[in-house]
């Protein structure tokens, strides 16, 4: 993203904080890029002739007489088919040893889609994982994060989902990714022979945190190019958005903004929404689907980052280790795909919505029975049956190692119902019970 600048060189910085510096300059535009002491920076505030810049790599070692040159333009990405298969840093510069990509310069963080030009998402994304396809069906054009504790295998699940999703392009936006995880993604995509469909913008834990702020916009600018110009189905993976939000708070705190909850900037909701709302089904058939990761601390979803995220995204996926079966499952209680009703029972078999709800209800009964058991009470016969059902349901359907098609998932659920319950206990519309209740049990 470096470029030639024909502008005047400034050499007198008046204020330096950890992430920003301020100098006297004229003719500068808001959000314009600059080079401060050789580091990329962006204008975040202009007061008269005082211009404040956010220095992405941090201000360590920047002297007050450092050279400052303005670029006269906001950050851009050069887009073309040549992006495919390439790895870039947060500035869009190659990190895979290959040549710089030539193409049309596009401003990152560009305008929003006119809501009336959007199409209603309606294309199901099959992942084979029943915890997703059965209970939390994903749809192209959706935005949904994994809410996960840092020790959970979200990167693995996300890579698996990405590869099974039949996307034309997969764009990985890595923020504060450990080097190991970065290599993991690289390996998985390579082994799947999918590298030519992958584009990565990566900021690792070794890179300065503020640089992360560029990653989602870079990834989404590339996504818009393929989805709008090339009518492709693009899947964008953003991990870890918690580290992105942390970087936001670093910058806003340096700028003396009054923090709101959890020392996050008051604009956190709008900042995150701008990113996630880039998910869209375009009229031309192209689409952008965003699957993100928001790591939690101690499972706390009331923290400002997951909380604001939940208010923006179209559901969330929770992973949980089920100690009864010793596997990681997609938690049916806290997970939710809000777009599922656009496809379930329509693109899938018509009993899908009712089967899904009935199974979760019975699973909830099992959770109650479990509490009873833990409190030392006797279980009724019904309680006992729900527990047995829950264990099988967890193992055969919720576990992330399940890989079957939706029809098979529904049949499996009916088998479990019939094995453990009477028809009235399941509470499904009679027409479906008549049609699908297995006769052999």
């Amino acid at each position, binding site marked *: 993203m470096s470029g030639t600048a024909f502008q005047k060189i400034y050499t007198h910085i008046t204020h330096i904080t950890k992430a920003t510096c301020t100098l006297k300059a004229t003719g500068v535009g808001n959000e314009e890029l600059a080079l401060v002491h050789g580091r990329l920076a962006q204008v975040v505030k202009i007061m008269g002739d005082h211009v404040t810049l956010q220095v992405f790599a941090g201000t360590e070692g920047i002297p007050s007489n450092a050279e400052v040159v303005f670029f006269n333009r906001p950050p851009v990405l050069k887009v073309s088919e040549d992006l495919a298969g390439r790895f870039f840093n947060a500035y869009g510069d190659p990190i895979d040893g290959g040549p710089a990509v030539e193409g049309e310069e596009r401003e990152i963080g560009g305008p929003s889609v006119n809501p*009336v030009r959007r199409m209603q998402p309606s294309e199901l994304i099959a992942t084979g994982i029943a915890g997703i396809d059965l209970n939390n069906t994903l749809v192209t054009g959706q935005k949904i994060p994994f809410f996960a504790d840092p020790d959970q295998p979200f990167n693995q699940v996300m890579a698996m989902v990405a590869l099974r999703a039949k996307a034309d392009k997969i764009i990985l936006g890595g923020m504060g990714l450990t080097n190991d995880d970065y290599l993991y993604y690289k390996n998985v995509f390579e082994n799947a022979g999918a590298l030519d469909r992958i584009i990565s913008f990566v900021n690792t834990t070794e890179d300065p945190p503020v640089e992360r702020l560029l990653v989602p916009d870079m990834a989404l600018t590339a996504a818009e190019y393929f989805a709008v110009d090339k009518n492709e189905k693009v899947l964008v993976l953003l991990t870890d958005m918690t580290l992105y939000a942390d970087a936001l708070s670093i910058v806003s705190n340096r700028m003396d903004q009054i923090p709101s909850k959890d020392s996050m900037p008051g604009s956190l909701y709008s900042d995150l929404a701008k990113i996630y709302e880039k998910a869209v089904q375009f009229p031309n058939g192209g689409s952008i689907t965003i699957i993100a990761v928001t790591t939690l601390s101690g499972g706390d979803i009331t923290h400002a980052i997951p909380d604001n995220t939940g208010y923006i995204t179209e559901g969330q996926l929770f992973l949980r280790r089920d100690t009864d079966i010793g596997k990681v499952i997609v938690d049916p209680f806290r997970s939710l795909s809000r777009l599922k009703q656009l496809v379930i029972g329509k693109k899938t078999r018509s009993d899908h919505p009712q089967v899904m709800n009935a199974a979760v209800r019975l699973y909830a009964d099992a959770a109650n029975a479990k509490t009873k058991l833990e409190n030392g009470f006797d279980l009724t016969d*019904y309680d006992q049956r729900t527990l047995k059902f829950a264990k099988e349901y967890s193992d055969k359907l919720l576990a992330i190692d399940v890989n079957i098609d939706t029809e098979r998932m529904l049949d499996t659920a009916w088998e479990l119902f019939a094995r453990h319950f009477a028809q009235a206990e399941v509470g499904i519309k009679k027409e479906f019970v008549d049609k699908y209740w297995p006769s052999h049990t």
Partner: protein
Amino acid sequence: MKTTAKTTGKVTGIVANLVIVEVDGPVAQNEICYIHHGEIKLMAEVIKVVGNKAYTQVFESTRGLKPGNAVEFEGHMLQATLGPGILSSIYDGLMHDLHEMTGVFLKRGEYTRALDPERLWDFTPLAQAGDTVEAADWLGEVMENSIPHRIMVPFVFEGKYTVKSIVAAGQYKINDTIAILTGKDAKDHAVTMVQYWPVKKAIKAYREKPRPFKLLQTGVRTIDTLNPITEGGTGFIPGPFGSGKTVLQHALSKQAEADIVIVAACGERANEVVELFVEFPELEDPRTGRKLMERTTIIANTSNMPVAAREASVYTAMTLAEYYRSMGHKILLLADSTSRWAQALREMSNRMEELPGPDAFPMDLPAIISNFYSRAGFVYLKNGHTGSITFIGTVSPAGGNLKEPVTESTKKVARAFYALSQQRADSKRYPAIDPIDSYSKYLEYPEVQETLKKSVANNWVDDVMLMKNILIRGKEAAEQINILGDDGVPLDYHLAYWKSEVIDSIILQQDAFDRIDSNTPMERQRYMVDKVLKIYHTDFDFDTFEEVNPYFKRIINQLKQMNYSGFMSQEFKRFEEELENIIAERKVKS
């Protein structure tokens, strides 16, 4: 604000969408200005004036803006364009027609007109030459999607006027003069079919605003039956993310028996707006048989659209509602979510480095919210007709914790409170309105009780109170069972619990996505309430608590099948018959 020469200025400071402008003349608080940026002009609103500096919030991205850019002030506040053609439209928060914009992406500075100036409307005069009229009096009407749209004396007209002339019935465009009014000063004023009104000011052209007294049917059982909303009432729906605020509001927008529905999608998801404009042109209003879109206007200022326009969007929506109320219509106004509007205020006050109130919201947030809600209401117009704005807003409390400024401020002004519970949502008990925490103050109004008695049933209010009691006792019983164990409590506790479960499952829970179950007319609600209360009053015979659960599950299952069947259909009656048989199995013969 009526200066002849426009005030101008130049940009001196930029922090995100706060732009400071040095001005060369007078400016008014909330005055609109345009900031030049190359070929385009960006719309902004004055939010503070200090000396010759105007602090403005720009309704667009300020990327690339530079100090020194020229600014023109318009001499008026942000205003809505009022005239025929508003219904079925989809506007942004500033009332620009989104369909008129070019391209897939929104372009900065592309401001489209609100109404089609070329469209011809069939005008019928209602007033005649010689009539004495004042602001909001009906001069004539046109049919807008088969809804009478009254052409009124503009709201800004002060005092009495005499109709000098009015055009004959015929086809006119909105900008054609349809009447000449003569003021006290003997000056003539031409009136067209379009007028303008500053959105932040309430339109008060009515005679009287009594307390609401009539039920506004929504088809949502837990609202209509348990905590009804009234024509002209105010309500709010707080709830954590994913608890069902939007699904509930969409249900209201489809089913409520309003003449006109105005939806303000304020800082929420764009896909949710798409859902409305994909479905509404297809779905029918069950009462009129016409497409829902014909009675609906959507103000879409979604979360990725400019933050400052979010605040404007709720005011624009309210102004449109007031405009139609003045025509004698029954309006349902929905805003999702008022918290996003409050957050927009917070972002701005933060940038202006104002002293923050609780949670960094502006100090005057409670006043702003109460002011807004007070614009709703049932009114008697000066001509004797009635109109109403029922307003229901959602609130998105941080962390789902209701002890936060937006919820608390709203609770003080809204009279119906529909608290969505995380626990109910988690166990898929939709709509997740907590039956015990929620309330409708309207149920306590004697005039509301009176109309309920007349329109539903004589003992209706008593039945509703009884159901609330049963639900509370059921909850207490469940807690005791949890503490003491199934066999540690008397059998009665199980009965109390399961009888409340019948009400919960059959009256409260409702499948918003089922064609039949989603919308329950009052008559049917009453029928089902009678049914479940009959079960409540029945003495059942059980030997052990273990028999209670499976038995009631069967009862609930039958009732549910009834909920899914057409009212009084063959199917419905068959399930009902089976239900009676099940009840008879254990009914104590007296």
